[in-house]
């Protein structure tokens, strides 16, 4: 994507606080001293058969970019591609799933746009607000911070395993619940305990988004493989080669930026490149705050784990220990 974008003129307006240059997913525009607008859009093809669930996951994913920057969602517009050959009831269920999630987020679905297409696609353009001084980007991680991850990894692998019919019902349910859950509480907690930086884990996988954070913040990150939380059955599915193509693409792009200081099986390595659907927040936060943030999240039934630490910029951008 950055290959394509570099041919576009870079916006010069000083009110644009976050734009194309640091690989954050949302744009931030300063309205005045109290308010900054956060704008984002995301949509994708179905990864689950249940249309209501798909709608929920797509909305949780679109809203996540607002949460990753510490904002509150205000308005959302549906983006729909839908074929004539499917029943309108399916579309209705997708939209109902999306609307329910936006409602849970405290936002309003205020309209949208649809296009006839061979394959269904759904997502939202979301507008959020935050005080300009409290915008959290991926560019301000500081050496000494700990890295907290707020959802288990493995959704890409589990979706692939589901397509192969090899994931148990219980494990699939757990994965769907993680994908459709909002990053709302995680975002509130990181603000409460003064996080320095944040990004959400989506298509580039843990190591892809961690690399973006490290580059934008001019630091190196150390990821502790043994501390990574995974959805149930992720390891089994990976061992059976049920790994999405996106994970291999991510590996090809990132390999030279990563040092492995721990012996990993090929499938273990791939789990860190697994593209995530509506993944959790990766938060860079001082140690005292990290501890409080995790116990706060735990008390609300949300998983949070310290998965590594921020180091001064070193030879490799990411080290896996």
């Amino acid at each position, binding site marked *: 994507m950055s290959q394509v974008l570099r041919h576009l003129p870079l916006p010069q307006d000083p009110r644009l606080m976050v734009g194309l240059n640091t690989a954050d997913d949302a744009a931030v525009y300063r309205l005045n001293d109290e308010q900054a607008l956060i704008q984002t859009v995301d949509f994708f093809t179905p990864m689950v058969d249940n249309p209501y669930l798909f709608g929920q996951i797509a909305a949780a994913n679109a809203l996540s970019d607002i949460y990753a920057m510490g904002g509150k969602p205000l308005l959302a517009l549906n983006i729909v591609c839908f074929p004539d050959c499917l029943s309108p009831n399916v579309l209705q269920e997708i939209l109902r799933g999306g609307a329910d999630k936006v409602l849970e987020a405290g936002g309003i679905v205020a309209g949208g746009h649809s296009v006839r297409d061979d394959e269904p696609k759904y997502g939202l353009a979301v507008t959020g607000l935050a005080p300009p001084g409290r915008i959290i980007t991926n560019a301000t991680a500081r050496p000494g911070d700990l890295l907290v991850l707020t959802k288990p990894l493995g959704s890409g692998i589990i979706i692939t395993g589901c397509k192969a019919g090899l994931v148990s019902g219980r494990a699939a349910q757990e994965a769907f619940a993680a994908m459709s859950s909002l990053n709302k509480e995680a975002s509130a907690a990181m603000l409460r305990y003064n996080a320095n930086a944040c990004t959400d884990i989506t298509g580039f996988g843990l190591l892809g988004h961690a690399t973006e954070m490290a580059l934008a913040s001019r630091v190196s990150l150390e990821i502790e493989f043994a501390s990574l939380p995974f959805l149930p059955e992720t390891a089994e599915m*990976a061992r059976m*080669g049920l*790994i999405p*193509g996106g994970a*291999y693409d991510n590996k090809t792009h990132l390999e030279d930026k990563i040092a492995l200081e721990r012996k990993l099986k090929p*499938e273990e390595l791939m789990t860190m490149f697994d593209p995530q659907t509506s993944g959790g927040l990766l938060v860079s936060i001082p140690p005292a705050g990290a501890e409080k943030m995790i116990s706060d999240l735990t008390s609300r039934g949300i998983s949070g784990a310290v998965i590594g630490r921020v180091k001064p910029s070193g030879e490799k951008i990411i080290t896996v220990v």
Partner: protein
Amino acid sequence: MSSKVVDCRGLACPHPVINTKNALEEAGAETVVIIVDNDTARQNVTLFARNAGYEVTEEKEDGTYRLIIRKPGKAGEKEKQKDTAPSPVNETVYFITTNVLGQGSPDLGQVLIKSFFISIAAINPPPAALLFLNTGVFLTCEGSPVLEHLEKLQAAGTVIMSCGTCLEYYHIKEKLKVGKISNMMEIISWLLGPHRPITIA
């Protein structure tokens, strides 16, 4: 040497892996050749087969890959066993086609088969392989009276294999508790030697 070819060109993930899994479980061939045309399929099929205990070699020809999958060579296997299981392995292979021992009362037959496996598990060195066919496959599945003895044998280095067709016929494939699913070609290759086969029918 027989081989089975599965063309997975044009198939997206996870289908090449599923087709490979099915081919390995069902094929009577010594070698399964999977043809794929994309890198994800190449890596995933290789990962699957290696983790399932097979050897994979790769041939590339104009944009497609031929992945040649075979069970590890006997020499390689013996070397591996030297590393992991130092105990000597007996040269006997048991071909077991029944879940009761001998003709007559089925109750007695069940008592006898149990005592048979207890005795085999006590013999040192343990047999090279136990090959289960027809109702014999009930012995490797959930509810078998000899599971713990088979597990002990497996831990001691005995290869345990159940006929896939038989497991499917009796609808107990999901209940398999010990050893691998195998096919007639593999079972026959064990019976042909160099081991000494003993049939329990």
